[in-house]
């Protein structure tokens, strides 16, 4: 903003035509871009700094709270629920990320051909992505209900034992991972499909002429050509997983026995149901730092692999 002011005063001193043009451009530029950028920066940078300050207090959301230094961060290290939330989120990440990349690319390859009704299939894969997590959560929460659900009903019909599913501490997180995968992987399909459609036919045909089989073409032509999308989807998937909240809220509410508490769900609980906002802000900051580290590590790894090729 200060640079704008100096630019304005400089422009107003000499009113030669090019300067006047520059002044006009600065004014229109900022009038056009100002409102949108102010809202975004105002609702991200200001709260970000505030959250950092909060994380050093014992704020209860209503009063500012006392300064407690690093107490919140120290408490976090020993907090069993936080550890559980970390484990749950890590499990989701390790199961979901590879699955969404592999299945996304596989389905996109299947869809990338001239078959009648291809648009219909693509629509089908996107429907769960478009529906709200609330709707998906309520619906799947019912289908995977231990006592009344359709899934156990089918197992019983087939003569198999009913499972604990969302009520079982050992199965709940796995079931949630399946539901999460179902709602999100259509995105990978669409992104990969767009990338596949940009691979020129000549390259694929040339590989075939060189005697490459289907698998070799896939491995050595298709996979490398969509690599930038794989990197993007991996980063996007990580952000998605680390912000996993809605489905937990509408199915298990973190239960049974904290088996499905994710980091973000824990932040929400801490700040808005237990009113320990300072502590919640500390957990949120650790989450943010973790996200950044994972993303940077992922990007560096992708770059190194790319350089080696």
């Amino acid at each position, binding site marked *: *903003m200060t640079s*704008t002011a100096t630019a304005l005063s400089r422009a107003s001193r000499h009113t030669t035509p090019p300067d006047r043009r520059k002044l006009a451009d*600065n004014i*229109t*530029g900022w009038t*056009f871009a100002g*409102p*949108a*950028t102010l*809202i*975004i*920066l105002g*609702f991200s*940078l200001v*709260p*970000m700094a*505030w*959250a950092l300050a*909060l994380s050093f207090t014992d704020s209860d959301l209503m009063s500012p709270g006392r300064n407690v230094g690093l107490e919140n961060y120290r408490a976090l290290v020993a907090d069993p629920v936080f550890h559980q939330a970390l484990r749950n989120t890590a499990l989701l990440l390790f199961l979901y990320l590879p699955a969404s990349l592999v299945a996304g690319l596989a*389905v996109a390859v*299947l*869809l990338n051909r001239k*078959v*009648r009704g291809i648009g*219909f299939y693509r629509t*089908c894969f*996107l*429907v*769960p992505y*478009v529906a*709200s*997590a*609330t*709707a998906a959560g*309520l*619906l799947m929460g*019912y*289908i995977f209900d231990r*006592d*009344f659900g*359709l899934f156990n009903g089918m197992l*019983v*019909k087939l003569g198999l034992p009913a499972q604990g599913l969302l009520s079982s501490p050992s199965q709940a997180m796995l079931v949630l991972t399946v539901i999460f995968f*179902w709602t999100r992987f259509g995105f990978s399909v*669409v*992104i990969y499909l767009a990338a596949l459609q940009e691979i020129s036919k000549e390259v694929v045909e040339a590989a075939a002429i060189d005697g490459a089989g289907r698998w070799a073409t896939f491995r050595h032509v298709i996979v490398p050509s969509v690599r930038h*999308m794989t990197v993007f989807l991996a980063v996007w998937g990580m*952000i998605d997983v680390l912000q996993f*909240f*809605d489905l937990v809220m*509408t199915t298990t509410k973190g239960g049974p026995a904290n088996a499905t508490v994710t980091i*973000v769900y824990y*932040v*929400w609980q801490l*700040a*808005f149901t237990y009113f320990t906002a300072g502590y919640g*802000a500390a957990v949120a900051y650790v*989450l*943010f730092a973790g*996200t950044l580290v994972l993303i940077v590590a992922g990007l560096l790894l992708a770059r190194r692999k790319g350089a080696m090729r």
Partner: protein
Amino acid sequence: MRRRRLPSGWHLVLAPMSLVTVLPFVWMVLSSLMTQAELNRFPPPIWPDAVDLGGYQRVLEGSDFPRWFLNSVLVSGAIVVAQVVLCGMAGYAFARIRFVGSRLVLVLVIATALIPFQLTVIPTFLIFNKVGLTDTLGALIVPQLSSAVGIYLMTSFFQSFPKELEEAGRIDGCSRFAVFFRVVLPVAKPALAALAVITFITAWNDLFWPLVVINSEAKYTVQVGLTTFQGQHRADWPAVMAGTVLTTLPVLGVFLFGQRRFIQALTGAVKG
């Protein structure tokens, strides 16, 4: 050359896979038409014995659902209009006008996409609490008047937009504003439509922020309303499913209607 080809064998792979993905939604509709007694049977039936609209009646008349629906329409509508106008203008400025600080601000804006909302949500709540705006529909709208994704989409769209049109307008003596609103906006309709579709779906489906900032039932959005409705009527699954169907219909409609634009927006956000 043969006129008609046999249906491709790939249908045998693709059809079952895509069916499995949408089948839960089909059953969502079917179960919303069942009676409570039917749905409380175990195993639950796949197909309703007869079409029963009781679930719809109970959710529409026995709860504030119509009110929540209206709130969602108002909030998402306002957000869509604001984002199309504000992000459209900002994207045009970043792509076309050379002004001081534009590069830096654009990078900053795009970088904010990496900040999780969960990090900023507590202070954002405190800000709204301080100005006394919690528990209002305004609190749902204001933080989403603009978005980093929207600005990014519009900037990359206008960068690939032919300059000749505007130059013709400028020569005719129009101001930048007049050129933008009379010449550029009408031609940019496809990109604005793509932004509108993606913004509507995101705004309509939002649960986290409304859950945090809204207290009174009369101001719930459909997503919050549905979540609490389910909590209070655990046994009435047909009504919960009816509410779920009604909540999903608007996004599904917008998605099916604007699918091409939606996919453009998703994939356009990635290229660059």
